[in-house]
């Protein structure tokens, strides 16, 4: 592909309105051959809307899209594909029960008429995978593939359709650092070929490593379009949020107390009947945060669920505050002093159809403070809820608003408020800020650290209200976000295939070291 001086894509004056929201506000955006143009912004800033318009999934209300200098109408993904646009979706658009070759050939004309031509497709897949270093078995069924492999299928799918413009929607969110490196090598080969890439991410160091240019969106509008040279994480974050943002939270050195959570030789089966947690040992002391780093699917979810009593273990013991809670019911474990912020916010953490106050009351509903002879004491409940809403800065029109209509960050704050309001001895927090905006994430981080040091105003008042609770919390934080792991943890444990590969000090460990452990490789000096 030849001429690199004229853009492949120009989007001019794109405006898209959803009921009550201006998702894209007169956005201009273009991509030249051979460049990586990054779209950066918080959740709801309009990045996804913009690329969905480009991919024919939404019609734009205003504005025009030009490809190779000509105005095109993109009414469906088919139109987009015909114009050479390919998209690597954040949630893989792969049919899990079909093979790689079937997934790639889906929607294409077959050379054998009504019959599938999987042989020819497989050959072409192998050619492409050799050319771009995307190792794949065309006959493998997709559900058996790792996340990294699935992403390769997505890229092959786009290349197979000869995409000259590739949209990558948060492609690194699910990968290990090593897989990210490998992906970036592939992506650079694609730009060397003269393809244009649209990269969507909120991981600032990746954006800086890969991009040629960066366009920042906030509330649907472009707030800056800059070349990568001279950009810094701080300057980008400030453009995203519209004010100065502190990316790494301040924290005082930990003063660990006695062991509050102890997991010994834990073995747990996953949903598919294979061992998910495989003889795992860990302990968390009061007043410390133990971060669990790892690629998703290595037993984190099963570990958290088992500690919370939502899943039965095969063997091993779990102690919360010195009490053996192995196999106990969730309520008993809570009574022992455990609070739990689950990974699946909407499925397990909150009830979307319930109001904010109902969600805040989900644990304490039967406490005599809020219930008398089977009737809610609404006065006390409202007071308590309003208190939590203020303390945790929950942005909600009212206490009666249904929780499901709040933003992801605010739903998470509702859950955090509810869980921390009991001043637990142990808090297990899974993916506490996944999908939460930087602004909201900042607040949740601060809250975790405040609780640990047990010094904040509102938290202190709560602790006073519930006097018998011990204040110094042991926190087990499970996260796939290394920034979060390094920013918050006092110790970092890396999980791989259900085992702890090692525990490192985040002050001295490097990302590479942790990344290797996440891939199951133990470094000699770790």
């Amino acid at each position: 592909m030849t001429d690199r001086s004229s853009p492949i894509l120009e989007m001019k004056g794109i405006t898209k309105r959803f009921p009550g929201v201006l998702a894209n506000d007169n956005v201009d955006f273009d991509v030249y051959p051979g460049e990586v143009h990054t779209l950066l912004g918080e959740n709801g800033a309009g990045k996804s809307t913009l690329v969905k318009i480009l991919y024919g999934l939404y019609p734009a209300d205003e504005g025009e899209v030009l490809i190779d200098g000509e105005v095109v109408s993109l009414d469906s993904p088919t139109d987009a594909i015909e114009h050479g646009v390919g998209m690597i979706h954040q949630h893989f658009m792969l049919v899990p029960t079909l093979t790689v070759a079937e997934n790639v050939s889906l929607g294409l004309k077959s050379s054998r008429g009504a019959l599938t031509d999987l042989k020819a497709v497989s050959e072409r897949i192998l050619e492409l995978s050799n050319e771009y270093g995307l190792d794949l078995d065309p006959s493998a069924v997709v559900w058996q593939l790792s996340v990294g492999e699935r992403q390769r299928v997505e890229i092959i799918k786009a290349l197979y359709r000869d995409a000259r413009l590739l949209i990558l929607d948060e492609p690194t969110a699910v990968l290990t650092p090593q897989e990210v490196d490998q992906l970036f090598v592939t992506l650079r080969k694609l730009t060397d070929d003269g393809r244009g890439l649209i990269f969507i991410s909120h991981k600032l160091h990746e954006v800086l490593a890969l991009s040629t240019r960066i366009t920042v969106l906030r509330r649907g509008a472009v707030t800056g379009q800059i070349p990568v040279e001279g950009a810094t994480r701080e300057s980008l974050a400030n453009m995203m949020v519209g004010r100065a943002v502190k990316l790494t939270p301040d924290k005082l050195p930990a003063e660990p107390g006695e062991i509050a959570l102890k997991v010994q030789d834990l073995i747990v089966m996953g949903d598919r009947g294979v061992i998910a947690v495989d003889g795992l040992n860990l302990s968390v002391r009061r007043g410390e945060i133990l971060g669990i780093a790892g690629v998703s699917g290595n037993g984190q979810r099963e570990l958290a669920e088992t500690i919370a009593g939502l899943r039965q273990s095969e063997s091993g013991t779990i102690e919360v505050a010195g009490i053996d809670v192995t196999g106990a019911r969730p309520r008993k474990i809570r009574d022992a002093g455990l609070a739990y912020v689950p990974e699946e916010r909407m499925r397990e953490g909150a009830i979307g159809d319930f109001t904010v106050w109902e969600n805040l009351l989900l644990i304490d509903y039967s406490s005599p403070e809020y219930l008398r002879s089977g009737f809610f004491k609404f006065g006390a409940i409202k007071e308590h809820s309003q208190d939590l809403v203020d303390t945790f800065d929950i942005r909600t029109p009212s206490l009666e608003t249904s929780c499901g209509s709040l933003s992801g960050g605010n739903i998470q704050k509702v859950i955090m408020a509810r869980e921390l309001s009991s001043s637990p001895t142990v808090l297990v927090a899974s993916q506490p800020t996944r999908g939460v905006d930087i602004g909201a994430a900042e607040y949740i981080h601060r809250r975790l650290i405040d609780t640990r040091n047990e010094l904040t105003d509102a938290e202190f008042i709560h602790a006073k209200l519930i006097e018998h609770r011990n204040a110094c919390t042991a926190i087990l934080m499970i996260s796939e976000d290394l920034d979060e792991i390094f920013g918050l943890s006092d110790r970092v444990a890396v999980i791989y295939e259900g085992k702890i590969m090692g525990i490192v000090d985040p002050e001295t460990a490097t990302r590479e070291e942790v990344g290797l452990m996440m891939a199951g490789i133990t470094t000699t000096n770790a």
Partner: protein
Amino acid sequence: MGEVFTAAVLVAVVASAIRLAVPLLLASLGETFGQRSGVLNLGVDGIMLLGAFAGYYAVLKTGNVWLGLLAGAIVGLFLGLASSFIAVTLKAEQGISGIGVYLFGLGMSDLLFQKLVGTPIPINTFPKVDIPILSDIPYLGPMFFQHSTVVYLAFAAIPVSTFIINRTTFGMNIRAVGEYPEAADTLGVSVAGTRWAAETIGGTLAGIAGGVLAISLGIFQQNLTNGAGFIAIALVYFGAFTPLGIMWGALLFGAINALVLELKTLEIIPRDLSNLAAMAPAIITILALAVVARRIRAPAALTKPFTRGH
């Protein structure tokens, strides 16, 4: 008991099991297409009933069983199109809209029968076609090779369905939209079009199944199917959404039915217990389902309407 299961009885039971399996097999194969594409059609029994009446009436008027089959197919086609419109285009709740189709078919088939026919008049049934040479094999011949053409065609439909589902682009599209329609949509596969086609195939086969039932019996009456359409839906699960698995389910059900009928004829089951015995096939099917269905994974998008961008 020893002398009851003579070779002649066994041959009769197997032959009758195969015959009885055919309407279930056809309806269930059709339903498989729909369900693999993500559409559950609970109205199968209603379509079968109207197909049965149409088939009966056409044979009554023309004397030609093949025109009867065609009439069943046409009625099934239109009801399949209507079901598609309701489930795919209007995105109705599939667990409920199908019940409407069923009740429509149940009532309408009886109404038409009362208005147009009134008293049950027997009609021509399918002629038996002995397959040369094979039908002369002792025991096996009468069991497998002395049936009517529709029986052979119905069993031929099994490998054909398997081939369509697994080896054609249409079949691949069906599997894709039943599992993850969003993915199919982003690649330009028409989710609605594929589902309309699959669901209409299902309706057509249900109509044919009804026609086969009525013409095989040579009679029509109110609620002729006696819930066969619902058994057909259950067989889709039982057969793990594969034509071959469905065949085994249909044969099992046919065999139990045939056995009960035979035992009644031989008066081994007392007359006053025969109603109870008639329930045996349904009960055994439900038990078999309960055991088998635990290990079966339904298409992920089954009963879920698709809207782009959601």
